[in-house]
C-alpha cells in the first residue's frame, strides 16, 4: 500500500500525459492545463515545507549555539521582515497589496537584486581563474580544448592585423560545425537517457525517489 499506490499513480499520470500529447481534442488540452495547475498548487505546499525546514535548521543552530549561529539570526530576521512586509505589515493580510508594499519592493530592489547580480558577476573572476588552472597543454585533449577556446576568445581582437579576418572565420566555423556536431551527439544521448529514465519511472523500475520503508 505504501509503495503500490504511489507506483500506480506514477503509471496512471505518466500514461495520461503520454496519451495527451497525441490527442489534439479540446478535452485533452483541458486535462493538460488542469494537471499543470495542480503541480503549481502543490508546489506552494512544498515551499511551505521548505520554509519550515529553513526555520527549524536555523532555530536549532541558534538554540544549540553552533558555529556561526549569529548569522542564522540574520537569516530568520530577514525571513520575518520580508513576510511582514509581504503581507503589508499584516494590515492587508487578505489581499496582494503586500506585494506592492514599498518596503517589500525596496528589499527586493536594494538587497536581493544587488546581491544576486554581484553573485552572477563573480563568474567573470571565476572564468579567469578556471582558464588559468585548466588551460595547460598537458595532453592532446587539453591542447585541443585550449586551442579552440583561444581562437574563439580572441576572434574579435583587432590587434592581429591581417590574421583577424581568418581568426574570425575559423572561430565562426568552429562554433557552427564541430561545436554543432558534438552538441548534437550529446543532446541525442541525453534525450535517449531521459526517455529511458522516464520510461523506467513510469513502469516502476526506477523507484529511488520513493525512498525506502
Amino acid at each position, binding site marked *: 500500500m505504501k509503495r503500490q499506490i504511489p507506483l500506480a499513480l506514477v503509471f496512471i499520470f505518466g500514461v495520461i500525459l503520454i496519451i495527451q500529447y497525441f490527442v489534439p481534442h479540446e478535452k485533452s488540452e483541458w486535462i493538460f492545463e488542469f494537471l499543470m495547475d*495542480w503541480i503549481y498548487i502543490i508546489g506552494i505546499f512544498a515551499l511551505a515545507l521548505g520554509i519550515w525546514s529553513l526555520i527549524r535548521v536555523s532555530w536549532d543552530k541558534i538554540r544549540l549555539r553552533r558555529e556561526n549561529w549569529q548569522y542564522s539570526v540574520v537569516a530568520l530576521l530577514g525571513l520575518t521582515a520580508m513576510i511582514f512586509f509581504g503581507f503589508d505589515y499584516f494590515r492587508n493580510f487578505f489581499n496582494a497589496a503586500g506585494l506592492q508594499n514599498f518596503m517589500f519592493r525596496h528589499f527586493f530592489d536594494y538587497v536581493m537584486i544587488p546581491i544576486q547580480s*554581484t553573485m552572477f558577476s563573480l563568474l567573470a573572476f571565476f572564468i579567469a581563474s578556471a582558464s588559468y588552472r585548466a588551460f595547460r597543454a598537458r595532453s592532446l585533449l587539453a591542447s585541443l580544448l585550449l586551442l579552440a577556446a583561444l581562437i574563439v576568445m580572441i576572434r574579435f581582437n583587432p590587434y592581429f592585423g591581417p590574421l583577424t579576418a581568418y581568426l574570425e572565420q575559423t572561430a565562426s566555423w568552429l562554433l557552427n560545425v564541430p561545436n554543432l556536431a558534438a552538441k548534437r551527439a550529446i543532446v541525442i544521448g541525453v534525450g535517449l537517457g531521459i526517455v529511458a529514465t522516464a520510461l523506467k519511472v513510469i513502469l516502476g523500475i526506477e523507484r529511488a525517489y520513493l525512498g525506502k520503508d
Partner: protein
Amino acid sequence: MSTARRTSLIILAAVIILFLVSWFAKFSAVQNTGAPFGISVRDGFYITLAAFCSLAIFSFLYKDNPYYKFAEHLFVGISAAYWMCVGFWSTFVGNFIPKVSRTLSDFFEVPFKSFDIFYFIPLILGILLLLRLSNKYGWLSRWSLAFIVGTTAGLNLIRYLRSDFISQVSNTFVPLVVDWEGIDAFFSDFSLAANGQFIMILGNWVVFIGVFCGLVYFFFSKEHKGFFGTASRVGVWVLMITFGASFGYTVMGRVSLLVGRLTFLFGDWLGLID
C-alpha cells in the same frame, strides 16, 4: 583582547563609519536634486545598503569573512520569504482560490472564476505533502510526490523524444556533396570562402563524422576497442573542441556581468561615472 579580534573590531568600526559617511553623502546628493528630506534619507540609505551588499559579496573573492556571511544569510532569508509571498499570492490566491470558493475569493479580494470541484484534489495532495513532517503519516506524502513525478515523467518522455531525438536526427540529414557538378568544376571554382562549395562539403562531412563518433563515444555496452575505440577517440576530440569553443564563447558575456556591477558601484553609488 587578541590581535585578530582587535583587527576585526577595527575593520567593523571602519565599515560602520564608511557606511554612515556614504549614507550622508548619498542623502546630500539626492536632496540636491530637489527630493524631500525623508525621501533623500531613505534613498541614500538604500543605495548605500545595495553598494555594501555588493562589496560584501565581492569580499568573498579574498576569503570567507563575517561580511560575506552576513550578506549570504540575509539573502537566504529574504529570498526564501520573497518567493513564498509571491507564490502564495500569485498561485494559491490567484490560481486556486478563485476556482474553489466565492466567499474566499471575496475575502482575498480576487475575482471569482467558477467552482471546480476537481481543484480540491491538489489541495488534498498538498496537505498530504505537509504530512511529511509526521513520523507516523509521512508515507502519505509519497502520493503527492508520485503525482508530480509521474506527470513530469510522461511530459518529459514525449517532449525530449521529439526535441532531443527526432528533431536532432532530422537535422543531421545534410548532403555529403553540395552543388556537385563534377571534379573539373569543383577544382576550377575552388575557394575557401565560407559559403563556397569546399567549405560547405567539409562542414557537412565534419558534422556527419562528429555526430557519428560522438554517438560512438556514448556507447556503454560495448568495449571501446579497434574501430570502435578509434571512432570513440575521434568523438572525444570533437567534444574537447566543442567544450573549448563554448568556454571561449561565454567569456565576454561573463565579463559584461561584472561591467554591469561596476557601473552601479562607480556610477550610482560613487557618482564617478555619468
